[in-house]
């Protein structure tokens, strides 16, 4: 196996329990506050920071530019790419661009449907699906692209990129087998690490992990920070494949308003402690509460 091309790959290869964070670029050009948060709270607590790509189909600044700004600040980004908004020409082009900007970790996602966001009338593209996007990365890495020249042979690249290719899975959905099958295909297509959808049920997660043991791919369990009971309930009702158990909702609803952040940190810490033994890291989605990240790492006993 070749040398790791990113800190994230290196840490996982070294068998460290890895923590990643996540930021979303702003709706507008004012990137300062988010960059500040990343530098202040994430830079020293996590191995890499995911940058979302027009998350939930709500239009905002781009993932590549923001990832590049993190690179500039010595924070390692995980560049998220969704298939919703670009065809294979644009996706491949952006992958080449990202590589030239120093981006190495790429997370391939299908992308929430346009109707989930704030531009419901937009045309969804989905030229490639997430498996196809992983294949595209692998093809680019081989020095070719997905197209053909006039003679019908694969095009050759003048300089090939290398990526640490990631993908997503939903471990606690109602139908596990199709998720596992698709994950197998993603790994076959080149996925090297997995970040999961939010998990709050350690037992179910452990079961899922034993189901994908044969894939031998590092998995970072996803945890979305729950800020209050209402948010937990919302996730239960509206976020596919996410089940927040009653004990968490109870804990959040019993907490006094001023204690909520603390309780939320504790819950994250507890969840990581309970799932640490069966996975290779945690992906923490703090949704603006980036300042909590150091405390969570602490609470998880990882500091």
């Amino acid at each position: 196996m070749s040398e790791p091309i990113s800190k994230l790959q290196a840490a996982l290869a070294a068998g460290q329990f890895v923590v990643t964070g996540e930021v979303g670029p702003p709706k507008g050009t004012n990137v300062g506050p988010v960059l500040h948060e990343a530098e202040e709270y994430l830079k020293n607590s996590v191995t890499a920071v995911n940058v979302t790509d027009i998350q939930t189909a709500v239009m905002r600044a781009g993932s590549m530019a923001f990832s590049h700004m993190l690179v500039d600040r010595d924070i390692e980004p995980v560049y998220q790419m969704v298939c919703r908004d670009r065809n294979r020409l644009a996706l491949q082009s952006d992958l080449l661009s990202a590589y030239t900007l120093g981006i190495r970790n790429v997370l391939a996602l299908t992308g929430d449907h346009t109707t989930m966001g704030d531009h419901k009338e937009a045309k969804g593209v989905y030229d490639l699906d997430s498996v196809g996007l992983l294949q595209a990365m692998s093809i680019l890495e081989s020095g070719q692209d997905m197209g053909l020249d006039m003679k019908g042979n694969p095009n050759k690249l003048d300089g090939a990129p290398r990526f640490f290719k990631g993908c997503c899975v939903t471990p606690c959905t109602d139908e596990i087998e199709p998720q596992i099958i698709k994950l197998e295909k993603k790994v076959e297509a080149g996925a090297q690490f997995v970040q999961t959808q939010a998990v709050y049920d350690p037992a179910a997660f452990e079961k899922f992990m034993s189901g994908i043991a044969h894939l031998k791919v590092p998995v970072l369990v996803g945890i979305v920070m729950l800020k209050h009971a209402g948010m937990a309930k919302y996730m239960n009702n509206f976020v596919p494949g996410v089940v927040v158990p009653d004990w968490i909702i109870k804990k959040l609803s019993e907490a006094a308003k001023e204690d909520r952040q603390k309780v939320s940190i504790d819950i994250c810490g507890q969840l990581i402690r309970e799932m640490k033994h069966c996975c290779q890291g945690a992906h923490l989605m703090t949704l603006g509460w980036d300042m909590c990240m150091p405390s969570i790492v602490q609470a998880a006993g990882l500091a």
Partner: protein
Amino acid sequence: MIVAERKPFDEIMEMVASCKRVLVLGCGGCVTVCLTGGERQAEMLASQLRLAAGAKGLAMEVDFDSITRQCDKEFFANLKKDLASYDAVVSIACGVGVQYMGEQFASARILPGMNTQHLAANTAPGVWTEYCHGCGECVLAWTGGICPIARCSKSLVNGACGGTNHGKCEVKAEMDCGWLLIYKKLQETGRLDELRKLRPPRNWRKDRSDGVRRLVLKDMVEEETKS
């Protein structure tokens, strides 16, 4: 079959507002079967136009007619009305009929009365559900006979996305997740291996990426139309 939905009345009224004579033209094909563009619907739209024109004080004469199919010119001979004598003809066929009539009757102004929707099966009385997208490259052989192009809202080819939710799609709570249907079918029939196969990105040239599509049957075409 093709299903089409009548355009909102206001939109139609706006198209013909300045006309003195209007013909509403039904089609006896698909749109009759889906109860939106038949002679009866032509009759009702004509009635609506007359009533609306009357209420607005417009002098508008509105007739209706219908032919077997607006997508075959041989049937145009059966028109009982002279299209050229109308200021506008509102065709309530699918978009094919509107254009084809327009091509054949260059002096008539053919306007669309319908929004053409999709290829459907009549899943319940009064309900037509999309089953085929007309993608040009059928994959049903390995998807348990359930089309991921038409019935997955993202037309994915390798399985469900993370938006699958208790068998439903993230787009609409009442909409089935096409890929979960495929999974269930393959599971029931012991053909899950079909799902495990990695499917390469689709060739969209067969869909719309290659421009206007044409079906040409060599044994039927006359020489001059072959090109």
